[in-house]
C-alpha cells in the first residue's frame, strides 16, 4: 500500500513537473484583422536548440505583400538590434527560427517578436508578440 502511495506521489510530481516545463515551451499568439489580408496571426515559441521560432500567417495576400518576422533579444541592460527574415512576395505564411547566441554571464531574458505585412507600397500591418526567456 505504501509503495502504491509513493508511486502515486512520484507520478504526480513528474506530471506537474512536465506540465510546468512544457509551459515554458508554450506559444504566444495574436491575431489582427485587416481588410486586405484577412486574419494576420503572429506566433512565437521557444524551440529545442536555443532558438525562438517566429511565424506569421495571413488569410490572403492579394497585393503581393511580403511577410517579415523579426526578433530583438534583451539581457535586461542591453537590447540587440532587430534580426529580420522576409518571405517572398505574395506569401501567406512565414516561419523562421532566430537563434539565441548568448553567454552564460549575459543571458537573454526577454524577446520581442515583430510580425509585419509590408512592401505592398501603400499599406502595412505590424504587431508584436513577446516572451519571457528567463
Amino acid at each position, binding site marked *: *500500500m505504501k509503495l*502504491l*502511495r509513493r*508511486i*502515486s506521489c512520484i*507520478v*504526480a510530481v*513528474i*506530471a506537474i513537473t*512536465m*506540465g510546468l516545463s*512544457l*509551459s515554458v*515551451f*508554450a*506559444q*504566444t*499568439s*495574436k*491575431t*489582427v*484583422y*485587416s*481588410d486586405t489580408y484577412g*486574419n494576420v496571426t503572429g*506566433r512565437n*515559441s521557444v524551440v529545442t536548440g536555443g532558438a525562438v521560432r517566429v511565424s506569421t500567417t495571413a488569410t490572403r495576400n492579394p497585393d*503581393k505583400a511580403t511577410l517579415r518576422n*523579426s526578433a*530583438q533579444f*534583451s539581457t*535586461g*541592460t*542591453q*537590447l*540587440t*538590434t532587430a534580426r529580420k527574415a*522576409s518571405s*517572398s*512576395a505574395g506569401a501567406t505564411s512565414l516561419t523562421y527560427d532566430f537563434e539565441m547566441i548568448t553567454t552564460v554571464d549575459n543571458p537573454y*531574458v*526577454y524577446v*520581442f517578436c*515583430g510580425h*509585419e505585412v*509590408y*512592401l505592398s*507600397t*501603400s*499599406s*502595412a*500591418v*505590424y*504587431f*508584436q*508578440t*513577446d*516572451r*519571457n526567456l*528567463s
Partner: protein
Amino acid sequence: MKKQLFSILFMILLLATTGCAQGVQQLPTSVETVSNMFTRPSEEPIQSTDDAANFQPYSFYFSHSFEQDTLIYEGGELRVPFRCAGGIGSKVGYLLLLDGQPQPYKLEPDGEYRYLHTITFTKAFAEIEFIFTPVAGTIGDTAELCAINVNDPAYRVSESGISGNMHTSGSIPILATVDFKASPAIEDMPSVDPDSLHTSVEYVDIAASDILGWSEDDLRNRSDYTISVNGSQNDSIFWNVAPNDPIHVHLELWGNPKAEFSVVFYLNNEPVTAIDHNTFHLCNQQGKKLKLDVEIDHADISEEAVLYAVIVCNNLHDIYYDNIQWFAEARTYYVIP
C-alpha cells in the same frame, strides 16, 4: 486498493495527456483577435497576450495606408489623406520624406510645421491629413513620398526601462507617388543644425561575403546594408557615453546600381540632415560598396539622446520589381550619459 489503482491510472492518464500536449505544442496558449481596423473599428484596448508578463511587455499593433497611391500636386499646399490604426492609448509619430528629403508637415491648415507630429489613439483608428508645401520636386517631376511611423516618440530607456517599443522597431514605411503639375513655392521651413554632422564617403570593392547566396536576379535588383554605431552592429543601447564624445555611425550600402537612396539621421525626433544640409543622396555603383561614416555631435544634449537612421529609396517607381526586400529601413539607438 482500488482507490490506489484508480489514482495511479489517473496519473498515467494525466501523464499521457501532458505528453500529447507536447506533440501539439503549436497550438497557441492564448489567442487574441483584433477586429477590422478600418471598416469595423474596435473600441477595445489591445492587451498583451504574453504568458509571463513580468518584464515590461509592450505588445502593440499597428497598421496604416495612404488613401491614394498617386497624389497630384497642383500648387499651394498638398493635402494627403492618411489612415492609421493602433492600440488605444498608444502614441505614434510620423515622419515624411519627399524624394528622400525630410518633409515638415502640418495636421491642421493653421497648424505648425514640424518634422514629426504625434498621434494618440483614443479609438482604434484615425483618419488624418498631412498638409505641406513640398520641399522637393518641380513641374513635370514624379517623386516618392514616404511615410514612416515612430512609436511613442517620447519614450526613453533611462526613464521607462527596456521594452520592445523602440522608436522604429515597428516602423513600416509606405509610399505614394507625387506627380508635380506645378512647382512648389519656396517657404520657410523648420531649420536644422548642419554643424552637428561630420561625414566622409568612400566606395570600396564588394567582398564575396557581401553577396553570398545572392541569385542572378538578386545581383541585378537587390540592395543590402549594414549599420553600426560606436563600433557595434548588435547593440541598440549605449550606456555611459560622455556628451563630448560624438556618436559615430558607420553605414555600408551595396547592390542594385539603379537604386538611389537617401539617408537621414534624426536626433531626438529632429533631423540633423535636411535639404541643402547634408542629406545623403547615395547611389550604388556596380561592383562597389558605399561606406559612409558620420559623426553626430550631441554635446548640447545632457540627457539621453535617441538617434535613428532612415534609409529610403528615392526612385522606386523607376525600378520596382517583384522580389524587392526593402525600400526603406529605420534603426534606433539610445545614447545614455
